[in-house]
């Protein structure tokens, strides 16, 4: 991989040499010095970004891992001193039936449903957009962008209003149609309904990204392929499955990985719902449980342990996706 990059950057050489100053240590020979400099150049250019990532991501990540092995409560927060307690937080976490009964099923079940729904809906919208004329397409894209641009907190409150138990439009409509008695029904107390609302909310906020990304991919699929398939008598589904999908496989991999990461760690959309922030309620997922453990129960060590578990889970899922993606590339 290194050589082609070097060849590509070769064109910019004179300017680069001027900017890096006179060759100092590269005595052994001009060719070697240049090559070394070329090899170092990408790293030098990446350095600022890597430094920012290290400071903003790796450092807190390392701290969270460190915290998860310590007894860390409000008192430690004030004094700054804490005791190493080994894997005690992890032992407590993995022996807690709440993890297996509530938090993990909620997180994984929700993520699977939400990712599939987001990608399917996003793809359908992208296919629709691809067929529209440019002007209409701009109008529709602008409309769905509004959903994407809506902050999670405002979006969640809008859904809460829609599903308000007493005066919400859904309750009123169902009552008007006679499907629901005048006493109403508290859907937020029912795990399935609760997460159905969260799925609606998250899919609504997440599908525009998928739609726009897939649309960009769709526009690169050669027309000839579709025309050829059409001549061979392939229907719409076959054309999508055998022509569009293989070409867009990397695009689908990317949107699926990103959606998975977002949906695993969804927070505001659950926390702000009634019962979504109460410790011990049936509605918490791993992300909210981290927060409730840390800031509600003030057990920062335990909260960190949950956060580490969530991170490892995400890394594992991402690794599986990436493997599948690279294997595809190697085969081709």
């Amino acid at each position, binding site marked *: 991989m290194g050589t082609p990059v070097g060849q590509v950057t070769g064109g910019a050489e004179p300017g680069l040499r001027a900017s890096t100053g006179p060759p100092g240590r590269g005595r052994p020979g001009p060719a070697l010095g240049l090559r070394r400099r070329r090899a170092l150049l990408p790293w030098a250019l990446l350095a600022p970004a890597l430094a920012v990532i290290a400071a903003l991501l790796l450092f*807190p990540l390392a701290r969270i891992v460190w915290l998860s092995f310590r007894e860390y*409560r*409000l*008192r430690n*927060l004030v004094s700054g001193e804490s005791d190493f307690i080994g894997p005690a937080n992890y032992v407590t976490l993995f022996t807690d039936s709440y993890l297996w009964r509530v938090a993990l099923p909620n997180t994984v079940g929700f993520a699977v449903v939400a990712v599939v729904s987001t990608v399917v809906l996003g793809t359908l919208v992208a296919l629709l957009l691809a067929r529209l004329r440019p002007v209409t397409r701009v109008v529709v894209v602008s409309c769905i962008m509004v959903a994407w641009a809506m902050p999670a907190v405002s979006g969640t409150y809008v859904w809460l209003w829609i599903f308000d*138990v007493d005066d919400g439009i859904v309750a009123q409509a169902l009552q008007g149609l006679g499907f629901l008695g005048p006493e*109403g029904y*508290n859907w937020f107390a029912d795990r399935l309904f609760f997460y159905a609302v969260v799925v609606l909310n998250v899919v609504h906020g997440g599908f525009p990204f998928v739609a726009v990304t897939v649309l960009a991919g769709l526009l690169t699929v050669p027309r000839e392929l579709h025309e050829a398939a059409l001549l061979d008598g392939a229907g719409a589904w076959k054309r999508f499955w055998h022509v569009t999908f293989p070409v867009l496989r990397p695009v689908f991999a990317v949107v699926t990985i990103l959606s998975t990461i977002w949906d695993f760690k969804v927070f505001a959309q659950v926390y702000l719902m009634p*019962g979504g922030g109460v410790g011990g309620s049936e509605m918490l997922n791993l992300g909210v449980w981290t927060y409730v453990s840390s800031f509600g129960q003030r057990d920062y060590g335990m909260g960190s342990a949950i956060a580490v578990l969530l991170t490892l889970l995400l890394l594992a899922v991402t690794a599986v996706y990436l493997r599948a993606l690279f294997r595809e590339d190697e085969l081709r």
Partner: protein
Amino acid sequence: MARRRIRKHVPLPAAALALTLAATACSGGGGGGGGGTDGLTVWIMQGTNPDESGFFEEVNAAFTEETGIDVEVEFVPWDGAQDKISTAIAGGTTPDVIELGNTFVPGFADAGALHDLSAYDVDTSLYVSGLMDMGAVAEGVYGVPWYASIRSMVYRTDVFEEHDLEVPRTWDELRETALEVKEAEPDMVALPVPGDAQYSVMPWIWGGGGEIAVQEDDGTWVSGVDSPEAREGIEFFTGLSTQDGTSTTGAVNWNEIDIMEAFSDGDAAIALLGSANPKAILENNPDLEGSLGSFPIPGADADTYTPSFAGGSLLSVFEGTGNEEAAWSYVEHLTAEDNMMLWAEQTGFFPGLTASVDTFTDSADPVLEAYAVQLNEASRGVPTAPAWSQVEAEKVLVGMQQAILNGTSVDEATTQAAEDIERILNGG
């Protein structure tokens, strides 16, 4: 100086937590350490009380004129206040002065977050004792009572008059009255039973003769939430919703602000509300002027009252800001008699100074009479364990109440709550 101490000890967790949870970061105290303080940051809780910005403009101007110190007041919603304070401690961005709910003080004092005020010769005998008790932890004084707040029943006098209803004096009468309102005013919520309001649950535990938690001789805490007495009270209150339907399904998710808003909108007829609420309700809906009445929470039997939670706030100074002395002088300024009276008059809260309570009660709005009775004759506090604030932070009583309103049996929910309370108070 002291601020530097905090930085020295907690830079790493502070940075980690601040970076991951940066959303609530606020500016720290304005002063730059050492002796010269030129600015103070003050956090005031916000939610069920009327608009208070005018009050602070006035008293802060007076303070700045007197001392040359600028004061910046930031309003923090009660909902989630404990999380915000913890985050601020983690990030080293605590304010200099903070209003703390009385139930919060022992926990934060015990953790070492609050400055001990006993060095300033605070005369603790001047303050309402129930509040002062929560500020005096171990040998120190970690907060000065600012105002007392109590919850009583508020009702719509026009609705009662129209349907010839009497003010109820027992639980049975309360239930019958609520049922009659429900019958007569089908569009109103006769008596909302909220799920997300723990102070609306406590009275009924006490009213039935139960205790939230008591400390045994050997120091362990035993919760009485699952005692037959407490269950009877909880059964009565939640039964208004689950059996009698005087509430509404959506109230399961209501907190005290939601009840107040329902009342402001004219949707509720009888409700358990704080003493600052009537004023806020009239601010929201001036049409209700003259239609608000109040009565102490009726007892299980006649001639008694059901005790109500005596809440209220203390003003505390954060440890390690470098501005402790200036912060204390601001606390003194706010708790001076005339400013305390001004605050009480503007909000409807009772002053934290014992001497001012009677003066205030005599001059106050008649709607507050029942509150004065409730405060003097039937008010209670929460268990004085440092870990109590964690029971609140974990929403144990809220979880219990919501479970019952959603169909869990009272026995099961109270057993769980008692277990949780004992686990937390006994340091589990």
